[in-house]
Every structure is written in structure tokens, then in C-alpha cells.
């Protein structure tokens, strides 16, 4: 899997040397201070420091990438490649939020693999038929509500996989990751208007795909 063409693209693409412009307040946040210290250690060759960063951020990166690349195996490889790329290009980190920097690398890798996949269309995301990947519901919730929530998540995940990769990426970055329009435009290399259009049309497409199951979402 690691030798796939798409991944080779992901590997060969350097992370964009764009400083994270979001307010980080690194000095105030102990977690970010720790991240920055770990980056410094890793730059000087401390592999354990880098692995501490991996431990901190791998859940977030996996959750982000698996929503953009619903094929779990491929998403997993993209995350691995993102960490490889981050390790290789530690010197290009220019401060700011380590979490955002890693997120950008992972997003670039995910988008590269989506583009490669678009060039070689295969059966789209068969793994979505596998229901076992949905996270377990909290045990404290009422069983009926838990079942509805799980069903809603499953339906939404399936619908997300059914819209175009561009729309999906925009919606994931906006709704789940909390990036604003301009940041998404910078990340995806399109105009602000295109980002808005992708989000609006993507949501309309989701609604069309969820036609008949909208009662799961209404109250």
C-alpha cells in the first residue's frame, strides 16, 4: 500500500512553508509550549521527542484524514506519510501551532491522494459498507438515542463519501476542523468563492443523498 502511486505523490510533496496565521497563543498554552519544545528536540535528532509529538496528534490527524479519504487503509497510509513528511521537513516548521502544521501536511497528503484517485477511478470507498469502523457509543447514553445517533453518523458518513472529494474536503475542513473560508482557500488552492460554493453545494448534495433519512436529523 505504501508503494502506491498516489502515496508516492504525497511523499514527494513538501509541506507548504506557510506560517499558521490563526491565533495560537503558544506562550500561554502549555500543550503548545510542550509541542514547540518537542519540535526543537526532534530537530536536534531526538526521535523520542518526535514520537511524543506523534502520540499527541495521531488521533486528530487520523480523524481528519479518514473523513477526507474514507478508505480507511488509504487514510491510514496517508497519516503515516504525513508523519514521515513532517519528520523529514522539521526544519521547515516556522513556529505557530504544531497541530495546525501537522494538519496542513496531512490535508495536503489527503488531497494529493484524492487527486490521484480521481485520475484512476476505482470502486469508491467500499469500506463504508463495513459498519464496524464506527466508534462505539458512550455506554451511559440511552440505548434508543445511542442507536439513533449511531445510525445518523453512519448515514452522514455514507453521504459524505457520496459527494465529490472537493466538496467533502471543504465541508470537513469548515464544519469539523473549524478552518475559515480563507484558510480553506489557501489550503486547497482555490478562490474564496469556490470554497463557499463547494460547501453550499456539498450540503445540498448531502441533503439530496439523505433524502428519506432526514428524520434522523430532525430533532
Amino acid at each position, binding site marked *: 500500500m505504501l508503494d502506491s502511486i498516489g502515496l508516492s505523490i504525497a*511523499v514527494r510533496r513538501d509541506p507548504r512553508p506557510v506560517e499558521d496565521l490563526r491565533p495560537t497563543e503558544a506562550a500561554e498554552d502549555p500543550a503548545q509550549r510542550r509541542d514547540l519544545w518537542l519540535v526543537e528536540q526532534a530537530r536536534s535528532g531526538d526521535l523520542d521527542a518526535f514520537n511524543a509529538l*506523534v502520540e499527541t496528534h495521531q488521533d486528530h490527524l487520523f*480523524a481528519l484524514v479518514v473523513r477526507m479519504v474514507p478508505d480507511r487503509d488509504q487514510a491510514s497510509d496517508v497519516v*503515516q506519510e504525513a508523519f514521515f513528511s513532517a519528520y523529514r521537513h522539521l526544519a521547515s516548521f516556522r513556529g505557530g501551532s504544531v497541530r495546525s502544521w501537522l494538519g496542513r501536511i496531512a490535508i495536503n497528503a489527503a488531497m494529493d491522494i484524492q487527486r490521484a484517485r480521481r485520475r484512476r477511478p476505482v470502486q469508491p470507498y467500499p469500506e463504508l459498507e463495513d459498519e464496524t*469502523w*464506527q466508534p462505539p457509543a458512550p455506554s451511559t447514553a440511552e440505548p434508543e438515542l445511542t442507536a439513533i445517533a449511531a445510525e445518523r453518523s453512519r448515514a452522514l458518513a455514507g453521504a459524505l463519501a457520496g459527494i465529490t472529494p472537493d466538496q467533502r474536503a471543504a465541508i470537513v475542513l469548515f*464544519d469539523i476542523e473549524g478552518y475559515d473560508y480563507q484558510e480553506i482557500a489557501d489550503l486547497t488552492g482555490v478562490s474564496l468563492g469556490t470554497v463557499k460554493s463547494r460547501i*453550499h*453545494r456539498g450540503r445540498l448534495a448531502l441533503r439530496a443523498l439523505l433524502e428519506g433519512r432526514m428524520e434522523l436529523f*430532525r430533532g
Partner: protein
Amino acid sequence: MADRMTAHRDHDTILIASLAAGDLADLARADAEALIAACPDCAALHADLLAIAAATRELPAPVRTRDYRLTREQADRLRPAGRRRLLEAFGSPRLAVTRPLALAFTTLGIAGLLLTAVPAGGPARMLSSGSERDAAATAQANDGAGSGAEGTAVPAHGAGSPAPVPAASPQPGGDLAGEPAASAPAIVSGGEPKDSTTQGSGALAGEAGGIPWLPILSVVLLSTGLGLFALRFAARRLDPA
């Protein structure tokens, strides 16, 4: 009911989606809100889009099934040290210029060597000698009619040309500068014949006894090009990722 559906189809759903995303300015917002107030289907669409956006934000995080920490071997491969690091730089995509550069050097080197291998003057001389031959033949034909069989003819260099060129039998050779054949003595403006035996290859290999720059330069270029290719190949072999 059918009329209502038909009317809804004509409504601007993107406007409703923009309202749900909170992207509309005052005027457009007022239009969208009026549409929602007037059309129950548009209102339902707006509510659904809000619900979908909320549900998307609440999607549970998928559970990771793999540990992405790097092993020492992976780390060494990703950030090689010493010679490997230097070598890897040649295979790096950031040094994408390596390949075209290697190709250009190799091509120039081969071209230079081929040019050197061609006998002095080479094709250029052959080409120019052909035109000289034609000119000489024409002049011979013109003069032959008036002066009979004199054995020599003055090529037509224009009326009153001060530089008559002996036109014995047409000679092979001649270079880009239109020099006379190598075996024929050239007559310079002072009228002194000058042996131009070494002038044919002078442009390529320097003056007689000088340093043959073109072959040396060609070999250097070819070696550099092939060396770059070899480095690139070795770098790729070292780092298959």
C-alpha cells in the same frame, strides 16, 4: 401541492444554502428570509441544511487502529546523514533541475564530440564548397566563351574584385567563412599567398599546436552529464520512498 413543488423548483437553493451558512449580506439575506417565509419547502430545506451542518460538526471521531510512531530504521531512512544525505539531495524532487541539466550536458557533450570527429571543416565546408564550385563553374563558362582555353579562370567575385582566387579544378573543402580550399593557397589583400592548411580545423581545435578546446569541453560536459545521471540514479536507489 403540485404547483407548490413546481414553484419551489424555481427557487434559488444556493441562496438558501448561503443563508444556512450565514454568508449573506443584508439585502440577499432579506431576500432569502422572504423566500423561506413564503415557501414551506424552502423553509424545510433551510432547516435540513442547518441540521446537517450541526450533525457534521458532531460526527464522532473515528477510532485509530494503528500506531504511527517512527522506528529508528524509518527515522534513519527519512533523515539520512553524511554522504547519504548529500547523495539524497540529488534525488530530491526539490532538485528537479538535475535531470534536465544532466540531459543538456550529455547532449552538448555528445554534440561536441561528434563535431570534433568530423574531418576539419566537416559538413559546413562541404556545403560551402558546393556553392563555390557552382560559382566557379559559372564563371568558367562565362570566361571560357571570351578567352578560350586558358586553364585558369577568375571566379566572379563581383565586378572589379580585388581578390582573385585561383580557380584550378574545384576543390573539396572550404569552411563557413568561405575560405579557399585547404590545398589552394589563399591570396590575401596584399597579394601574398597564405597556406591555409591548418585554418580549417582552427575553429574547432585551436591554432596548430594549441589546446583543442572543443574536445576537452565536450568530454567535460559529457562526463558531468553522465555523472549527474549516475548520482540521481544512485540517490533514487538509496531512497525508494
